């Protein structure tokens, strides 16, 4: 699975929006800065505008209150949303969710992920979820099994 993910990531490096525990939120930055960083760095978006944009996204998920929180203070779900929004910040983003149930272990199936993606569906180009095959029962969506 790792190899497929790596290959896919390498192939889509420029537009890759990775949601993974191996790509954590930066611990010394609060949530909104973590998310805004992508737009600020790649599109030189002024920090106030970037902040507003992030707040809009957070509002969609009803998570405005976590904007100024440190990453260590987040719940698993909040961390997942923050990572997802961050991935959506990449231009023409190809979101790749790596082992989502490792990030949100308390979630029973993919409905939570589906809903989360559905809310911001116009903010990304594609979304790919990589997970172990033994978790396939937790997915209601069509999945492609490789290797």
């Amino acid at each position: 699975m790792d190899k497929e993910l790596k290959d896919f990531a390498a192939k889509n490096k420029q537009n890759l929006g990775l949601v993974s525990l191996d790509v954590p939120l930066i611990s010394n930055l609060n949530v909104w800065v973590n998310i805004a960083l992508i737009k600020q760095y790649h599109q030189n978006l002024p920090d106030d505008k970037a902040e507003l944009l992030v707040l809009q996204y957070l509002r969609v998920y009803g998570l405005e209150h976590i904007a100024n929180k440190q990453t260590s203070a987040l719940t698993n779900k909040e961390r997942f949303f923050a990572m997802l929004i961050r991935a959506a910040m990449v231009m023409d983003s190809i979101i790749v969710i790596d082992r989502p149930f490792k990030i949100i272990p308390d979630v029973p199936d993919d409905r939570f992920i589906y809903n989360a993606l559905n809310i911001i569906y116009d903010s990304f180009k594609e979304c790919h979820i990589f997970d172990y095959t033994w978790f396939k029962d937790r997915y209601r969506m069509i999945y492609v099994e490789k290797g």
Partner: protein
Amino acid sequence: MSGKKDIRMIDIIERIGKTSINATRSFRDTLSFAFTIILKMFSKNSYSSATRMVLINQIYFTSVQILPLFIGISIILGSLLIGIVFQIIKTLGLAEYLGRILMGLVVTELSPFVTVLLIALRSSSAINAEIAVMKVNKELNTLDKFNIDVIDYLFLPRVINGVISVVLLSALFSILTLTSGLLFSKLMFGMSLDTYSNVLLNSANFYDIVISLVKCCTFGFFITLIPIRFGLHATNDLTSIPIAVLNGMVDVFIAIVLIEVLSLILSFI
């Protein structure tokens, strides 16, 4: 017996050789890293809104936060130092050299040194630990995966902040020390404002200021660059953090001494 002795001697020589090679390699790597940072510093593409934000935050944590402490130290140290210098100069009958001593001592030596010491103790160690923690937490990997250049986003603002902070704080130290020296000399020795400022102005020269400026820039550059480099030496293990900080801070100290010695040599040429 002789054979054992020979082996020990060889071991010692080998160890010395290894240490020398490591030191040389470390020095070369630092210079090469410095060169990369300098190149990035002058590249327009290195700057973004994110970089600017980090820079502002860094200046805030390095300079603004310690400003009350720094001003206090400058005034107290300045008054005391100028008082002592006055007294010694008076006793030795070297009053005509007062300006030269004050300008030479405060502007070119004391200000950069006190500033760099304070910033190295406070910020260099913080930067070293911060980078090491980021490395251990795989946060540097995050930046890489999102195509964010760590040099542009993390290192450059820190190094620029080092240069700006040391230059500004050192200048502030000089101004505050010389001003508090004026008050002190007026109250304790009855020296008028005109006499004091004339003494200082006559001895002040732009060469001293340029030397001081270059020295501050070099200090600021290396006391942030070295901790960053050593922070990157951390492995994925948490215990590597203190080792990285320890090695980094020792090298920061060596760099400070080296720059100080070089500047002294430069000012005597």
